[in-house]
């Protein structure tokens, strides 16, 4: 693979929106690369359009009408003479056909090969490849089971509880946890039907169900010359229905030796599919053992915390790799300090985390030492139902975990987002909970915390009785607005009677005549 053509990238089209589009643009500016934005109708005002060197309308409102239109995006890339396309995450990021069409048009795709996407995109083929590469996988099948009877037989061999999973699955569809033999037939039929509906592929396989595991993932980066490096782990167990809320790097429970083992397993996983570009190998960790879960063949939302502890710009590295450059061999990299990320989502934690739509009428960003905000949000932005509810990523960095945690508390106390409900409040409570402080949490923790809210011990930073202050402030607000309303109604029909207005007019008039 040593004769990889090196083609410098000068103009990069970003086939995405929101905070990740802005994030990619920032690396491009650092590298001296011109950026080309695409945008849907509701995104005409968006930050990623305003920060771009060039912008092209996609038309349409929904993702299907806009950011998922591979043909239209490729047409724009040709018209704009882009020499590379970065897909970000979501939308077209893991669409092998798109990657192939881009490369066929002589444009670099900033991501892995369609082959790597295809192998890792199918859960069964990924499991088979991992077993061949010696990467530990969750005990279970490597081939689809024929029917419910065979599923029941396999379940006995693996031992209950088991997970029934759709081979083509994703997004929690076609997955069932089965605790005993009486449930397996019904579970097989509904899950297989669901998978057939959602993915046009009803093949199912079984895996051992790990009770209360932790979700720990390894960041990898490969080039087109056969080098693959890992950048340690991210702890992503604080999630709800597969939606992560808080991530940290490094994990509070991974020691140097385990990090090395997991890192080596992740590198072996990537090498098994000749991986290049940035990718993430996800593992389930349970009682000191770890098992391959899946590989995400793209940059991930939470890449920023890895960047902070390893001092690397992963987006810039992806672009360099796409251009055919070699990545520096920095084997033996170690994390420095600690980083925590909170996803700022427009959602209502008091109402089943339902999306909260509206106009961001007010905004106060935090700042100061150790704070990084990756955001696509601005004041007066409308949060629409068309796209993902993630507004921004709040990242706090510290020399150790406790400093990072305290900085994140500061970030969440300084932050204010008015007009929509956000995940900031629940994140603040979790960061002050015993489970988070001690690092003793698993993938069930967030759900439990939300269900038992108020029962958990929360060690609040601020000593004041904030509820009482809120009541006092509400009364003061009413008092002042009542006074203002009285003043306004006094002035009805005669601003001229207001001496201040009259004075201001006089002054202005005077200026004009002079």
């Amino acid at each position, binding site marked *: 693979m040593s004769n990889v053509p090196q083609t410098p990238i000068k103009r990069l089209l970003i086939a995405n929106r929101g905070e990740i589009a802005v994030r990619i643009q920032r690396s491009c500016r650092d590298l001296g690369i011109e950026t080309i934005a695409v945008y849907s109708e509701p995104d005409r005002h968006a930050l990623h359009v305003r920060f771009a060197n060039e912008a092209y309308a996609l038309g349409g409102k929904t993702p299907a009408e806009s950011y998922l239109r591979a043909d239209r995006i490729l047409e724009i890339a040709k018209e704009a003479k882009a020499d590379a396309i970065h897909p970000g995450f979501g939308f077209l990021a893991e669409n092998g056909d798109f990657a192939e069409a881009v490369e066929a048009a002589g444009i670099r795709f900033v991501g892995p090969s369609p082959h790597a996407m295809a192998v890792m995109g199918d859960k069964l083929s990924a499991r088979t490849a991992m077993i061949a590469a010696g990467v530990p996988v969750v005990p279970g099948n490597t081939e689809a089971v024929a029917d419910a009877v065979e599923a029941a037989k396999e379940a006995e061999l693996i031992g209950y509880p088991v997970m029934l999973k759709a081979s083509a699955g994703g997004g929690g569809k076609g997955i069932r946890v089965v605790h005993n033999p009486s449930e397996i037939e019904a579970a097989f039929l509904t899950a297989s039907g669901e998978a057939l509906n959602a993915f046009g592929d009803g093949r199912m396989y079984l895996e051992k169900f790990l009770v209360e595991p932790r979700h720990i993932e390894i960041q990898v980066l490969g080039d087109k010359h056969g080098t693959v490096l890992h950048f340690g782990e991210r702890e992503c167990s604080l999630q709800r229905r597969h939606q992560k809320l808080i991530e940290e790097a490094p994990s509070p429970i991974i020691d140097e030796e385990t990090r090395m083992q997991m890192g080596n397993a992740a590198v072996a996983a990537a090498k098994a599919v000749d991986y290049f570009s940035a990718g993430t190998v996800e593992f389930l960790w349970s009682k000191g053992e770890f098992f391959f879960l899946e590989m995400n063949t793209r940059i991930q939302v939470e890449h920023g915390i890895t960047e902070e502890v390893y001092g690397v710009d992963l987006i810039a590295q992806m672009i360099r790799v796409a251009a055919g450059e070699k990545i520096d061999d920095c084997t033996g990299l170690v994390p420095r300090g600690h980083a925590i990320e909170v996803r700022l989502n427009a959602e209502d934690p008091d109402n089943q985390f339902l*999306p909260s739509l509206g106009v961001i009428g*007010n905004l106060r960003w935090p700042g100061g030492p150790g704070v990084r905000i990756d955001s696509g949000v601005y004041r007066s932005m409308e949060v629409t*139902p068309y796209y993902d509810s993630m507004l921004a990523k709040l990242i706090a960095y510290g020399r150790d975990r406790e400093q990072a945690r305290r900085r994140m508390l500061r970030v969440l106390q*300084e932050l204010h987002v008015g007009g929509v409900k956000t995940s900031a409040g629940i994140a*603040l409570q979790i960061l002050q909970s015993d489970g988070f402080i001690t690092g003793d949490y698993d993938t069930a923790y967030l759900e439990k915390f939300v269900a038992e809210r108020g029962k958990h011990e929360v060690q609040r930073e601020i000593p004041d009785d904030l509820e009482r202050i809120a*009541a006092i402030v*509400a009364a003061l*607000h*009413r008092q002042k607005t009542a006074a203002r309303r009285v003043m306004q109604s006094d002035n009805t029909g005669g601003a001229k009677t207001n001496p201040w207005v009259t004075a201001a007019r006089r002054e202005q008039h005077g200026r004009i005549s002079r």
Partner: protein
Amino acid sequence: MRYFLRVDSGREFELDVEERPGGQCIVKVDGEEIRADFLDVDRLGQYTAIVDHRSFAVSIEEQDPQHLQVNIAGESYTVVAMDEREKAAGEVAGQGPPKAEIIKASMPGVLIDVSVKVGDVLEAGAGVAILEAMKMQNEVVCLHGGVVEEVLVKTGESVDANQPLVRLAPPQED
């Protein structure tokens, strides 16, 4: 002026606010007199409050003058604030006859299913439609219930936030 406040935890406060020349206020609460200074910072919802020399960066979202979302240091409180007159009037209004209800979309989206028709009798909290927004399906429910008088939308229709969906007549008295 005297105010009656209820925070979402259920905790209630009764307090008097007296304005002094220059805008400073004296707040009397639980027999205590507290000096407070409260100013609008940006006319967009951010305020500065100094309560007994403790300083708070506050933001407030006002649904209407009585219903306020007060945010302090990352914590959020829903406060119902009434003055004396409103409290008296509110208690009377609460005893009045039930009102007709118009059920509105809580957010823009697409109606996946409109499950009621004219003449249906709905209990308080009953579902009338499924609204899909941000790839999630949410049930739209009525607050007080009643008899469906008019269905203003149909399945498959896109709606804006606050768009009326269903009109109910007050529930019949037995």
